[in-house]
C-alpha cells in the first residue's frame, strides 16, 4: 500500500504547540508511508489541491490527514480523496488539534503524541478496504413535537413546502407560552391577535395532522425512516363529536379546578376549553377534579352536551407515525422559584411571576384584564418588578441569562401605567439586555414616557409588613445605598428552564441536553438547528432562551432543514456498518437483542439460524460487534484487527 500523510499546521492552532514538520518527517518511517508533508491549511483550497496532486504524483492509495476533529472536516477530505480518484473511505483522520495542541502546552510531549496518533491512523488505514454506500428510501413526512410559536411556524412552513406534518402537542391546545401573553414587545400588539391566525392555519391546513393532549412515547428508526409511537391521553370527550360550544363548562359543578392555562391565578371548571381561541377548540376533562371520574356521581356534562361527546370510559390510546425527520420545539417552563425563601417562597399571595401578571393583564384572563391583587382584589398603586430571579444566579445553579425578561418587564411596566395611570412601577435590574431591533428604544420608553423607575441592583428580601403591603429590601448600586420600597404587588421575572419532560424526550431522540435541560445543537454557531442525531432538528426555546422573533425564525430554519432533506428521493447510508461472518455465527441472537436500531435480523441459512445486518438501518454503533461471543460480527473499518493494530502501534 502507498500512503500519504498530511500534518496540518492549522495556522498556529496546531503548529503553535506541535512541531508539524517533525511529525511529518517521523511519519515517513511508518510502514507503507511513501509521502508526508505539513501544509499550513490543509482544508483550504490549495491544501486540498496538494492532496489531490500528491495522490496522482505518488500513486497513493490511501491518505491520512492529521488536523482537527473529524466532526469538522472528515467529509471535506473524503470528498478530496474521491476527487483524486480514490475510494472516499480510503482515508483516516488523526485529531491533533482538539486532542493535542489545544489541551497541552508542552511542545515536545505534544509532538510525540501527535506522531503516535498519526502512526495509529496509518496502522488502521493499512487494513481499510474500499466501501460503497447503499441508498434507501425516505419517508417524506415530518413530526414536530410542541405546538408553541416555533413549532407552529415550522409546521406551516413544512406544510406549505408540500411535506405532510404530524404536530404533537402535550396540552389541549396549541399556542404555547405565546398564547398566554397579553401584548408583545416591542410593538405592544396583542399576542392572541397575531398568533391566532397562525393557529387557525394549523387547524385548517390539509397537510397538518394535529394531535393535542398527546406525548411522544417511543422513537425508533433513523434519519429518513423514524417510527414514532404517540400516546394520546384520554380527554374523556370524543373530539370528533365535540363542537366546542362550551355548554359543558358552563354547567360543570367543579368550579374550583386549578387553571393551568391562567398560571393558577384563577379557577376553572373540571371540563373546559382553556381559552376562547384554543386550537383545537375542544373540551377536555381534568380527571383529578371531575366528580364523575373521582366519585362516580355527577354526569352533568354528559347530560348537557348537545352532541353526546362526553365519554367517561375513554382511555389513553396510541398511534404510530412513520416520518423522515423530527423537529423538537418543546419550549420552556419557569424554574421553580419557590426556592427563593427570601421572597416568600410562594407563600405571599401578591408576590407573583411575570407570566401570572401577564394573565392578569390579559382580557381573557381571570380578572378580565383588570390588574388586581390576588390577596384582596385591590388595584395596586405601587408595583415592584424584580429581574433575574433564577437567572444569572450561580447560587441556585442557574448561571444563564433568560434573554427576554428585560424586554417583557419593560412591557409590563408600560402596560401597568396604561391600565392604572395613577400607579407607580419600580424595576430592579442588573443590566438591561435589549439588543433586538427597536428593543433598547422600547425599554427607554418605559422610563422616559411611562415613568417606570429603574433601580440598578438586586433585591435581598421581600416580606409582608403586617398591614397589607410588602417591604422590598433592595439596593441602588448607582446611588450606592440600600433602598426600601413598600409595594402593593411584586412581580418576579422568573428564569426559564427547558420544558418539563424535555430530558426524557431528549433520551428518546438520542440527543444531548445541558444542565438546565436545553437541547444541544450540533454546532453552537454553524449548526444551530441540527443535533448530533441525523434527522432531528431543533426550533425555539428548547435549545436555549429566545424571544418570539427568534423562535419564529428558528422554526422556519428547522423547516428549511426538513425540506432540504426531503429534496432528495433517496439517502445514502454510511457503509461503515456491521458485517456478519456466517461461518462463525452460532445464531445465539445476542446481537439481535442488543441492537438499538433493529438493524440485525434473524435468518436461516441451510437450516441454521444466523444473524443478518440490514445495512441501510445499521448506524455503525458497534454494540453488536462487542456483544458477539464468537467475534462473528465485525464493524467495517473498526474491526478487531484494526483496533489491535492501532493498540500495537501505540504500544510498540
Amino acid at each position, binding site marked *: 500500500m502507498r500512503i500519504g500523510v498530511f500534518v496540518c499546521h492549522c495556522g498556529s492552532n496546531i503548529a503553535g504547540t506541535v512541531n508539524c514538520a517533525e511529525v511529518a518527517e517521523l511519519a515517513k518511517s511508518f510502514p507503507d508511508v511513501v509521502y508526508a508533508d505539513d501544509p499550513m491549511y490543509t482544508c483550504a483550497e490549495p491544501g486540498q489541491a496538494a492532496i489531490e496532486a500528491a495522490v496522482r504524483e505518488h500513486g497513493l492509495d490511501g491518505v491520512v490527514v492529521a488536523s482537527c476533529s473529524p466532526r469538522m472536516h472528515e467529509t471535506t477530505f473524503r470528498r478530496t480523496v474521491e476527487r483524486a480518484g480514490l475510494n472516499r473511505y480510503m482515508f483516516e483522520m488523526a485529531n491533533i488539534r482538539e486532542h493535542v495542541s489545544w489541551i497541552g502546552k508542552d511542545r515536545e510531549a505534544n509532538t510525540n503524541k501527535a506522531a503516535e496518533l498519526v502512526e495509529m491512523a496509518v496502522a488502521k488505514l493499512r487494513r481499510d478496504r474500499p466501501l460503497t454506500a447503499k441508498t434507501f428510501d425516505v419517508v417524506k413526512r415530518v413530526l414536530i413535537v410542541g405546538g408553541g410559536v416555533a413549532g407552529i411556524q415550522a409546521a406551516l412552513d413544512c406544510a406549505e413546502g408540500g411535506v405532510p406534518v404530524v404536530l404533537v402537542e402535550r396540552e389541549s391546545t396549541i399556542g404555547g407560552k405565546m398564547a398566554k401573553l397579553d401584548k408583545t414587545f416591542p410593538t405592544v400588539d396583542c399576542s392572541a391577535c397575531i398568533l391566532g391566525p397562525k393557529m387557525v392555519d394549523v387547524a385548517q391546513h390539509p397537510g397538518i395532522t394535529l394531535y393535542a393532549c398527546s406525548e411522544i412515547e417511543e422513537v425508533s428508526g433513523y434519519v429518513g425512516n423514524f417510527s414514532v409511537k404517540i400516546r394520546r391521553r384520554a380527554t374523556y370527550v370524543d373530539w370528533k363529536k365535540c363542537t366546542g360550544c362550551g355548554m359543558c363548562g358552563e354547567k360543570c359543578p367543579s368550579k374550583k379546578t386549578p387553571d393551568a392555562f391562567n398560571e393558577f391565578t384563577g379557577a376553572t371548571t373540571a371540563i373546559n376549553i382553556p381559552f376562547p381561541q384554543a386550537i383545537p377548540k375542544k373540551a377536555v376533562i381534568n380527571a383529578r377534579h371531575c366528580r364523575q371520574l373521582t366519585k362516580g356521581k355527577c354526569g352533568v356534562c354528559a347530560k348537557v352536551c348537545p352532541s353526546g361527546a362526553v365519554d367517561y370510559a375513554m382511555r389513553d390510546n396510541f398511534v404510530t407515525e412513520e416520518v423522515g425527520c423530527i423537529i423538537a420545539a418543546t419550549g420552556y417552563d419557569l424554574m421553580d422559584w419557590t426556592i427563593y425563601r427570601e421572597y416568600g417562597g410562594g407563600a405571599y399571595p401578591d408576590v407573583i411571576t411575570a407570566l401570572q401578571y401577564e394573565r392578569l393583564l390579559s382580557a381573557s384572563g381571570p380578572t378580565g384584564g383588570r390588574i388586581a391583587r390576588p390577596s384582596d382584589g385591590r388595584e395596586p398603586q405601587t408595583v415592584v418588578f424584580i429581574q433575574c430571579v433564577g437567572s444569572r444566579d450561580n447560587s441556585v445553579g442557574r448561571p444563564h441569562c433568560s434573554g427576554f425578561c428585560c424586554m417583557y418587564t419593560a412591557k409590563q411596566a408600560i402596560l401597568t401605567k396604561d391600565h392604572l395611570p395613577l400607579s407607580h412601577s419600580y424595576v430592579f435590574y442588573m443590566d438591561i439586555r435589549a439588543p433586538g431591533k427597536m428593543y433598547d428604544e422600547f425599554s427607554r420608553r418605559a422610563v422616559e414616557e411611562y415613568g417606570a423607575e429603574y433601580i440598578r441592583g438586586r433585591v*435581598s428580601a421581600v416580606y409582608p409588613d403586617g398591614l397589607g403591603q410588602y417591604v422590598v429590601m433592595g439596593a441602588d448600586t448607582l446611588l450606592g445605598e440600600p433602598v426600601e420600597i413598600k409595594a402593593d404587588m411584586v412581580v418576579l421575572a422568573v428564569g426559564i428552564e427547558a420544558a418539563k419532560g424535555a430530558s426524557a424526550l431528549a433520551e428518546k431522540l438520542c440527543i444531548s441536553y445541558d444542565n438546565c435541560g436545553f437541547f444541544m445543537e450540533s454546532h453552537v454557531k454553524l449548526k444551530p438547528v441540527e443535533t448530533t442525531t441525523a434527522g432531528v432538528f431543533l426550533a425555539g426555546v428548547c435549545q436555549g432562551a429566545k424571544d418570539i422573533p427568534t423562535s419564529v425564525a428558528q422554526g422556519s430554519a428547522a423547516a428549511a432543514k426538513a425540506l432540504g432533506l426531503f429534496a432528495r428521493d433517496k439517502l445514502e447510508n454510511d457503509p461503515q456498518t456491521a458485517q456478519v461472518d456466517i461461518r462463525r455465527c452460532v445464531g445465539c441472537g445476542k446481537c439481535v437483542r442488543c441492537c438499538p436500531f433493529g438493524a440485525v435480523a434473524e435468518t436461516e441459512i441451510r437450516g441454521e439460524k444466523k444473524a443478518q445486518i440490514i445495512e441501510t438501518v445499521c448506524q455503525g454503533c458497534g454494540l453488536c460487534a462487542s456483544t458477539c461471543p464468537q467475534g462473528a460480527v465485525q464493524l467495517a473499518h473498526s474491526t478487531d484487527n484494526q483496533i489491535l493494530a492501532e493498540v500495537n502501534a501505540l504500544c510498540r
Partner: protein
Amino acid sequence: MKEATDIRRRRDAGFIAVVQERSGQNLSACYQCGNCTAGCPAGFVYDRQVHQIMRAAQLGLKDEALDSRAVWLCLACSTCSLRCPNNIDVAAVMETLRHMARRENRVAARKVEKFWFSFLDTVRAFGRAWEIGTMALYMMRSLRVFTDLDLAPEALKKRKFGFRPHTVANGGSGAVTRIFKRYRERAAREGTRP
C-alpha cells in the same frame, strides 16, 4: 476638586492576593449586583456599602477597603453570604479586611474596638465575661460615662446584671489568662498588633 482615581497605578495586586487567600474567596466572582448591600442590616450606618467594599477589594484599592468604618460595623450576621448569587462568602471578606486593618492599626471605628477590648479584658481577668465590668471599662476607655445610663434604673431593679464577676474554679481563670498572654507574646514576636 477631587481628581479621578488612577486605578491602574493604585491597583495593589499583593493586597488582592492576600484578601483572596485569607478569606478563601474569589473576588472576581462578584458582579456588583448589590444584593449584599440590599440585605445588610448595618448598611445605614456604613460610610461605604458592602458592594463598594467588594469593589474596592476587586480593584486592589487597599486604603478604600481598609480605612472604611463599614468593616468595623459589620454585624457578622452573614445575610450577604447567604444570599450572594455568586456564592461569595462576603462576610468572610469583611472579616478578613477587619483583621488586616486591625493588624495595621487602621481603626476607623475606635469606639467599637474599645468595646471589644473592654469585653476581652474581663474575660482575660476572670475567665468569663462580666457585663458590668465591660461597661465600666468601656466608659473609662471611651470617656462616654453616660452610655446606656437610661437603662440603669430598670436593669438595677430587675437585677439584670451581676455586680460581682464570675471566676472559673480550679485554676481555670489562670488558664484563660495564659491564653491571652501567649496570644500577646506571639503577636509581639510576629510584629503584629494584638
